[in-house]
């Protein structure tokens, strides 16, 4: 039986992202990078709340959002687990988010006067670094 995976995320107060949003983003990133693998068990609501010194309701809401989006599976009475990999968003939603992210990125990068080649090389390197590592 899988043991609870340590969840090494940090949250910051004073950030423009709410604490709940920071948790959702943090866990999604860990799943996307393979640091959390399908089948890994998440900390309990109370456990993660205590680890971060925040209200348990905030953790519960973040977990609900991740479950609704298909990143986590809840097993009755056992807790939450990272869901098997699959297409997690509808095509339209995926398209919309991709569009948003690209727009934000372009806004940020254009003022830096970098060339398209530089952007592509750098992006490729970043994606390479994120490829899930196979661990025993």
């Amino acid at each position: 039986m899988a043991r609870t995976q340590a969840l090494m995320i940090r949250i910051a107060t004073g950030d423009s992202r709410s604490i709940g949003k920071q948790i959702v983003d943090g866990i999604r990133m860990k799943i996307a990078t393979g640091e959390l693998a399908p089948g890994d068990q998440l900390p309990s609501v109370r456990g993660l709340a205590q680890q971060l010194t925040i209200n348990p309701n905030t953790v519960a809401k973040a977990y609900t959002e991740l479950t609704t989006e298909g990143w986590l599976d809840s097993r009755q009475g056992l807790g939450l687990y990272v869901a098997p990999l699959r297409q997690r968003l509808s095509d339209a939603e995926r398209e919309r988010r991709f569009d948003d992210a690209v727009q934000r990125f372009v806004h940020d990068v254009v003022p830096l006067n970098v060339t398209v080649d530089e952007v592509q090389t750098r992006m490729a390197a970043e994606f390479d670094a994120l490829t899930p590592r196979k661990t025993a």
Partner: protein
Amino acid sequence: MSTHDDHVIETHGLSRRYGRKLALDHLDLRIPRGRIHAIVGANGAGKSTLFRILLGFLAPSAGRARILGRDSQQLTPEDRGRIGFVNEEHTLPGWMRVSAIARMHHREYARWNQRAYEEVIGHYHVLPEQKVGQLSRGERAGFNLALALARSPELLILDEPTLGLDVVAKRAFLESLLYSNAADDCTVIYCSHQMEEIERVADNLIILERGRLMHMSAPEEFCSRVTHWVADIPFKGPEPSTVPGLLERQRLDGLHHYLVLDQDEGFAEFLRGVGARSIQSMPVGLDRAVNAFLAKNHAAPAAAA
């Protein structure tokens, strides 16, 4: 059960006048049962007056206040037993021993929960034989919280409970509030000026100003009402009174910074209309949003011409 039971606190047109000054100004406030509600407001927003009326220590000048479904002016000792109150002064007789006070509360309150008391006091290095006067500020805060939670209150009002506590004591206080089983079935009203704490604990944010309710929602919803715009506008920029939703403005290194309330992309149009060359916007954190909101109407001396 009466219908009032859906709300732990319910005020209708509640006013309290001190001489020429209105500390509470026709306040209509309904706080639902359950969860942690943070009340923020500048000094003088009426928080202390509100609590004094709710606890029956002060009569309203007009309007009505109900707490746990009861008229706050007619609370019985049993009603009071359902309400816990901890304020920043943490006043207990300094000459009494911790064990004696705990025993006294145990006898006095029918719903006393010894396990809850021990669970909370366990967060602090408080010995039963110590006198209250020998406890540090943080230990006294913890002792007060332990006493309040052990009475198994339905409603716990905390008025600036962590004021003057160091970071370690603050953390112990928050942990014993957030994770004690004793607090599970309790509605908490948390009054604080410390946004960092509010971000960590609050399910619901209530903003009072000059005795009136200005806002009530989840904290992140309030944040999303405030945006920060930076525009490069030649010369002086627009007259502040013409800027829609303006909370705060600053001119830094020749750029105009605006914190505004309830503005969408239309605000960019406004800035373009007054000659802005470049325009950027970003969201702000809770601390910044609340401070700008409260600072807007803060009294300031009449500006020099």
